[in-house]
Every structure is written in structure tokens, then in C-alpha cells.
């Protein structure tokens, strides 16, 4: 589905990804763990093709096609969708307008169904993200993804800024996105700083990023358990051990 090969990325001359390589399989969900500024969001932004993330070297292959230098909107059209951590407000553009654009002609009725499911019926006529609460922003992002129905879903910290009432709804909707009522589930990459969202979503594999590099991989819950107990500092030590014994990957 997606292959990232030895990716080096800069933002305003600052190196943010330093040789990332990973493979995303069809229908699988991956968690990206790591402390602040470790490169998690940068990796998602590079995959979706945000222009300020300048690819220095490496390649991104999506469904067999090299999309390394493809425009942002072309990647979205190929089937990559993203849930932003802090989406911008777009005054004057109604939430309904985006969904009308994303949903194919025959499925316009789904707008109301999706909106109702996410408690956003009254937000359809409001300006996109304008005056939305933290929980409403997340639900708006998921609503747009439901309308877009992408093959690869990038979720950037879906639990941040969400209260306990909203987090189960967010988790349930992400599951709905990841396991639609049809054959062939989409793939997903979930960036999580706290790991709480993993209580609601079954992820198949986890990666730990540190300083723009993947330093560890394993089952996401095991990784998270270790991080919760020892913090990310231990991951550095683990990385050192990995260098000595590259085939034995453990966080404890």
C-alpha cells in the first residue's frame, strides 16, 4: 500500500526526518509513537505532501506509484486522507460545502447521516472549524474523512484536546473509518503522543520515532507499556541495544 524509503525531509532548512523507511500494508493500522518534535507529524505531512515539508532525498511509493513529488491535492485524489491535529479555520467556507465536494453525487444523502452520527448536524452550515471546540474540531476532521473515504488514513494525534466524553466517540468513529462495512479495509497511520487512543483502536504495529528517525518497532501496546513505564529516554538505550543485537527489539 505505502512504502517510505530512506526519507530525508527539511522544514525551513531544519532537518526533521533523517532516513525514515517503513512499509504500510493494506488494511493494517500503524501507530507512530514518540516525544514532541521527534518527527511523527512531519512524517504524516511528508506523506500527504504539505509543500513546506521539503523532501531532500528518499522516495514515497503509494499503491505502486511514486508520489514523492506529487502535489498535495493529487495525493488526496489518489486516496490519502488526513486528520489534522490543529486544522485551520476557513471563514466563509461551510462544512457542508467540503462534504458536498468530497461525496460523490449519488451519496450526498450520507452527509446528514455522518453529521448526525458525529453530533455535527448543526455545524454543517457553520464556517469550517470557526469557533469549534477541541472535540468539535476532531469530529469535523473525522466527518470529512468519512466523506472522503480514503484508502490510506493519516491521523495526527486524534486524542489531543479531546475530553473524556468525546474520546470514545472519536475512537468509535476511527474504528468505523478503519473497518467500513465492505470488503477491503483501508490502512492507517496514527500519530499518538499519549497513546490513549490505542485503548479504543486496535493497531497492528507500532514505530517509535526519536530525533527524526525510527528507533524501535513492535506491537504498539507493548511499546506503549514500556514507554509509559520508562519514558522515551529508555528508547534511546534500547536503540543502543538494538545496534548491538538488531534482531531483538524490546522496549523493556
Amino acid at each position, binding site marked *: 500500500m505505502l512504502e517510505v524509503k530512506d526519507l530525508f525531509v527539511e522544514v525551513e532548512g531544519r532537518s526533521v526526518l533523517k532516513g525514515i523507511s517503513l512499509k504500510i500494508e493494506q488494511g493494517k493500522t500503524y501507530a507512530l509513537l514518540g516525544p514532541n518534535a521527534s518527527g511523527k507529524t512531519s512524517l504524516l505531512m511528508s506523506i500527504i505532501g504539505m509543500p513546506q515539508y521539503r523532501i531532500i532525498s528518499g522516495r514515497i511509493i503509494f499503491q505502486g506509484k511514486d508520489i514523492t513529488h506529487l502535489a498535495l491535492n493529487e495525493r488526496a485524489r489518489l486516496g490519502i486522507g488526513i486528520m489534522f491535529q490543529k*486544522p485551520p479555520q*476557513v471563514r466563509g*467556507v461551510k462544512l457542508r460545502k467540503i462534504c458536498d*465536494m468530497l461525496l460523490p453525487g449519488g451519496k450526498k444523502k450520507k452527509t446528514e447521516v455522518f453529521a448526525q452520527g458525529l453530533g455535527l448536524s448543526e455545524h454543517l452550515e457553520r464556517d469550517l472549524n470557526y469557533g469549534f471546540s477541541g472535540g468539535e474540531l476532531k469530529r469535523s476532521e473525522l466527518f470529512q474523512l468519512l466523506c472522503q473515504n480514503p484508502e490510506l488514513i493519516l491521523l495526527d494525534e486524534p486524542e489531543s484536546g479531546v475530553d473524556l466524553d468525546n474520546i470514545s466517540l472519536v475512537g468509535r468513529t476511527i474504528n468505523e473509518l478503519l473497518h467500513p462495512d465492505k470488503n477491503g479495509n483501508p490502512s492507517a497511520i496514527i500519530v499518538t503522543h499519549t497513546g490513549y487512543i490505542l485503548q479504543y483502536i486496535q493497531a497492528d504495529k507500532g514505530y517509535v520515532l526519536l530525533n527524526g528517525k525510527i528507533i524501535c518497532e513492535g506491537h504498539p501496546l507493548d511499546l506503549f507499556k514500556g514507554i509509559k513505564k520508562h519514558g522515551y529516554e529508555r528508547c534511546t538505550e534500547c536503540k543502543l541495544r538494538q545496534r548491538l543485537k538488531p534482531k531483538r527489539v524490546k522496549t523493556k
Partner: protein
Amino acid sequence: MQTETKAKAEASKDKIAKFGPDIDIAQFAEAQERRDISSLSALSPELLRAAQGVGIELKEEARAGTFVQLDHSVIYQRIKDSYAGQAEIMSITDALNKYPEIKKKYYWQAVSVDTDKYTSYAELNPMHGYFIRVFKGSKLKRPIQSCLLLQENQTLQNVHNIIVIEEGAEVQIITGCSIAPKVKQGLHIGISEFFQEKHSKLTFTMIHNWAGEFHVRPRSVAILEEGAIFTSNYILPRAARSIQMFPAAYLRGRNAVANFNSLLWGLGDSYIDVGSKIILEGDGSRGQVNARSICYDRSQIYARGILHAKHDNTRAHLDCRGILFSKEGKSFAIPELIADKAPGSTLSHEAAIGPINEEEIHYLMSRGLSRQAAIAMIVKGFEDVSILGLPPELETYVSRIMELTQKEAL
């Protein structure tokens, strides 16, 4: 009284307006009087198109009444039979003859005759305009439309309008000002005085369509009694040489509300200086100003706003935003808040001029829109007609008019 008004007008004949370029009125000729027409379809095809372009519905099916002035002649005035007894519409000249009390009660009672040389000219050279009155308690389901057309080049049109909405009455008025294609230069002076009695409601939507060498000087003031709601919408989708206006609403009664909304497109060499002023005098009165401007080419846009609180427990907000698309254009946002011996008043403003935010463009692109389509969507949203507070059918209508006119203009 009349002599005093004339004397004031005489004394301000050369009074230069506070804002905008000074216009030599003498360079424009006065147009001739013409005959009445029996229906709007009797207008020439080019004038019909001009009227349609500013929101005038020629069949009048969805309108309660119509007034048309061509150059200096009132050629059509009609209130539909089904609305007889609910409202009246006629030329101001006829109204002053029919109801002599109007002169004392309304004429120059909201706008000061000595505001500047343009108000002075209007008094010294009166050339019609309309009188619209909606009677007490009447809630008109259909809008009233008025159209001020100019078909001779290098002439001036000078109108004085009075709008009276009696107690508890409600109406929408669409007024379109336009010119025939051959008109390149000219001057339009429009005096509009609004009087809203208790708990009345008026939405006044004005669409202008001028030419690149045309000057426009409207002078408007509204006076609101208790619980009255006044919404003034101004839409300028085409170029003009210069437009300068600063309409004001005096909220004299308790809980009166005024909203001024403007959507301005600066094209060519247009000099646009449009302000709105709300004076909060009544307890609990409220106001809102929304100004949106997009500056292209070598145009200059001044978006002004004054919120003046003279009473406690009043509230008003000004939202003034502009996009500058051209390196040769200039855009100004000038908000002014005055709390005048009213410490319990709350006045606020947001004023911003800037390019379209790249983050917003990228966000929409991440949903699959091309860069061009994303910018178009943001611009369209920026000039969102929903800020005008029109009923849905009228909103759709105005959107369509704007889209068509802008397409032609660009």
C-alpha cells in the same frame, strides 16, 4: 423652515466632502425629463439588462412593488394590487405634493442638508427619487424593488429618497443603481433618509453597477425607534471611478438594532471609500458592521467603521476584512470605537487585511481541491452573501446576480 434649509444648502455649495476625491459637479449635465412607461418591458433591451444586473425583477412576480427612475424622470411606480393598503411607493415629488407634512417630518430630517456640496446640490436641484412607506403592522411577504438608471453619458443623476417603516411593519427593499452600456462618465448623488418606527424591520439591499469613469456620492442616515431592526447591505461587484459614502444609523429607541454589511470588489482604477456608522443612543441598542473587500488591479479601498456608544448597556461589533490581490492596489481598514460617557457600553472590532492564508489553501488541497479551486472557494466564502441576512430565495438571487456581474467585470 424651507428658507432656512435653502440657505444652508446655499452656504455649503462648495463644501468639500470629508472623504473621497472632490468632484466638479459642473462638468456633468442634467438629463432631460421623460415620459412614463406602462410596464418594465417597455424599457430598451440594454436598460433591461442593466436593471436585471442590479437585482431588478422585470416580471415583478416576486415583488410587492416597483419604482424606476431613468435619468431625471420617474418612469414607473407601482404597488401591486395585492399589497394595496399595506405600502405605498411614489416619486418624492408626488409625495411632497400629496402629503405636505412629509417635508417637515422627514425631508432633510435625518441627513443634514449642509453635509457637503453633494447634499447641497440635491436640495438646490431636486430631481425626484422615491418615497416608500410601509403602513403600521404590515409585514410584506415580497420585497419592494427600486431601480435608478442612467442612460446618457456625462450626465448626473440626483435623487432624494425617503423610506418610512411604520410601527410593527416589516419589509425587504432591493434597490439597484445602474447605467446603460454607453455611459462611461457621470455622477450619481443619492440622498436616502430612513425612518423606522417602533418594532419595525427593514432590510435594505443596494446593488451598484457603474462604469470605470463614474462617480458616486450616496448620503444616507437611518433613525430607529424602540425595538426597530435595520439591516443595510451594500454590494459593489463592478468598477467605478470613485465611490464615497458613510451611511449612519442612529439607534434612538431602546433595543434598536442596526447591521451594516458590505461586499466590495475593487477593480480597475476604482477609488472606493465606504464606511458605516452606528450611534448607540437607546438602552440595550446593538449594532454590527461586516465589511468585506477584495482589491484588484490599481484600485484603492477604504473600509471605515465607527461605533459610537452614547448610552450604557449598549453593544456593537465591527468586523472588517480585506484581501489585496494586486501589487498596485491599496486596501485600508479604519475602525473607530467611541465610548462616549457610556462606561457600560461594549464595543469591539476585528480588522484584518492580508493575503489568503497558505495554511487554509493547503488544508482545502488536502481534501483534493486544486490550488486554484481552493483559492476560488476561499474568495467566494470571503464574499459570502449569507452575511447579508437575506431570506433564502433572495440570498440565492443576489448570489446569482453577483456571480454574473463579477464574471463580466473580470
